[in-house]
């Protein structure tokens, strides 16, 4: 029941199942495709996981708090445009690396203002913002791709520290910081209490508004950080940037054992959920399934897991009804 408590180095049932699923998927794809089991492809899967690991971490916090953000794809897009423009304008690469998280945090603040102060349900509020931001991306890019960006950021983030790529360090630090915040500071208790019941949390004297703002801002900053890596990796920003990111992030986090209704989350599960998703997507591509089918697989996984949880009574149907309020 309490993934956070016992699930840091000792895995729980859900996390073991995910680990086994990852290994099984790798075995199946290795048999099915001669290109699959190569070190080059392993690198591709890990590189493809960078953004989702960061966005998923923020999404995990939001879901654990009983929130959600379906606009993460366009938030990453806007932050990526910020990073790209800064890079194009010749700003120092070290500074441009911070443009992403900063833009993301600001957008997170705006999201929180709409949802918390406007008392709009998170799913509705972020859906509205998704529409607004998508058009903002179109206007900002003027219908064209942002491409051919300078290589400064790519070189900066392509370096290694003590043999590990910068991305690995950043992700490890982000997860460690979130683990400490959740497990060792009052913030974690408050966030999980709000996820359990916002009204009870309020009656307990928890500063609900402050915690909700903070969580949306942190999630925004993590999504913006993902944008920095996105620009470094691809050196362009296309119109449709991040269009499947929200689905991927929610699916990975829920797959990892975080409750869609809040009150429960798992960091290890989130990492494994992201890896399983990316392993499946990459494997299907290499075995000749068109990438068009990827969201079908992701969506089915998400629905399948939720269905399984309802059937096994981990989510009660009546609580699902309440959650729509």
């Amino acid at each position, binding site marked *: 029941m309490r993934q956070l408590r016992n699930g840091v180095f000792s895995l729980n049932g859900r996390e073991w199942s995910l680990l086994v699923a990852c290994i099984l998927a790798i075995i199946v794809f290795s048999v099915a495709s001669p290109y699959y089991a190569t070190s080059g492809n392993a690198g591709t899967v890990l590189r493809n996981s960078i953004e989702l690991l960061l966005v998923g971490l923020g999404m995990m916090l939001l879901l654990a708090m009983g929130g959600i953000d379906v606009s993460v794809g366009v938030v990453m897009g806007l932050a990526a445009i910020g990073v790209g423009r800064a890079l194009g304008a010749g700003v120092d690469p070290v500074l441009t690396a911070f443009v992403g998280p900063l833009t993301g945090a600001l957008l997170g603040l705006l999201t929180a203002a709409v949802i918390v102060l406007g008392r709009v349900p998170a799913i509705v509020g972020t859906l509205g913002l998704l529409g607004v931001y998508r058009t903002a991306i179109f206007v900002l890019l003027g219908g064209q791709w942002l491409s051919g960006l300078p290589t400064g950021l790519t070189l900066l983030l392509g370096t290694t520290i003590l043999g590990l790529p910068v991305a690995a360090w950043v992700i490890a630090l982000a997860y460690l910081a979130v683990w400490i915040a959740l497990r060792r500071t009052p913030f974690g208790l408050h966030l999980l*209490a709000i996820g359990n019941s916002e009204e009870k949390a309020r009656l307990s004297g928890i500063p609900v508004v402050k915690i909700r703002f903070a969580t949306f801002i942190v999630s925004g900053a993590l999504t913006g950080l993902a944008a920095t890596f996105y620009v470094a990796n691809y050196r362009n920003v296309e119109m449709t940037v991040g269009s499947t990111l929200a689905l991927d992030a929610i699916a990975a986090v829920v797959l990892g054992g975080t409750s869609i209704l809040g009150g429960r989350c798992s960091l290890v599960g989130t990492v494994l959920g992201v890896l399983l998703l990316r392993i499946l997507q990459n494997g299907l591509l290499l075995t000749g399934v068109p990438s068009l089918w990827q969201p079908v697989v992701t969506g089915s996984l998400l629905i399948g897991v939720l269905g399984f949880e309802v059937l096994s009574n981990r989510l009660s149907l009546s609580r699902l009804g309440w959650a729509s309020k």
Partner: protein
Amino acid sequence: MTAPFLVAKGIAKRFGALTALSGVDLEIRSGEVLALLGDNGAGKSTFIKILAGAHPASDGELVIEGVPVAFSSPKDAAAAGIATIFQELALSENLSISENVFLGRELKRSVLGVPFLRRADMRQRVDGLLKELDAHISDPEAPVGSLSGGQRQAVAICRALNLNARLVIMDEPTAALAVAETRKVLALTRRLAERGCAVVLISHNISEVFEVADRIVVFRRGRKVAERLRAETNPEEIVSFITGAHPDVRALEKAN
């Protein structure tokens, strides 16, 4: 008689078109158990939620030890020494007992400006409180979701005790309890008052109320219709106030 700890003057509460409370005057004294009675929907919970800072009053004034106060959140009320055990308990089922007891006012130590929880200290304190309550809960790290109704009530009471409150409000604390657990809660209620705490107890159980209360107040349809010292009344009279059969209530309701 000592000066009252808290005075409520002309308290009213409206939820949209519905008037849940109107013109309630009440004094709450230290060292005294005040029982609040009334039919379902009489406004008891609404009144104590105003005392607890959970709802703002639509009208009226709260005065604590002579100083007017305005609570904008339960945190403000807690800071003024008011601890409330809500009817719906307000516990987080997904957190442990010790986390619940300290929720919202955790013990922490600051390292480089980051507030770290002092879990061992919190656990120890909760262990002590649970023993004092004789609550038969062995593991303060157990999630509250796994506890029985009576055990949850004990956790909620621990929370109030831990605040070192000047006023403890209990909304139907014994409603879900078995006989033995009810005895414990009632004994505890008396003990709190003997320690000099003011206690407000809401209950539907008349015999329970006559056992522990010093003063009895009856609410009916959002108004205070009676206030009696226990020694000056009897269960029959109180019941007639609750049901509205008492001539005083009839006269009052005719007048409005």
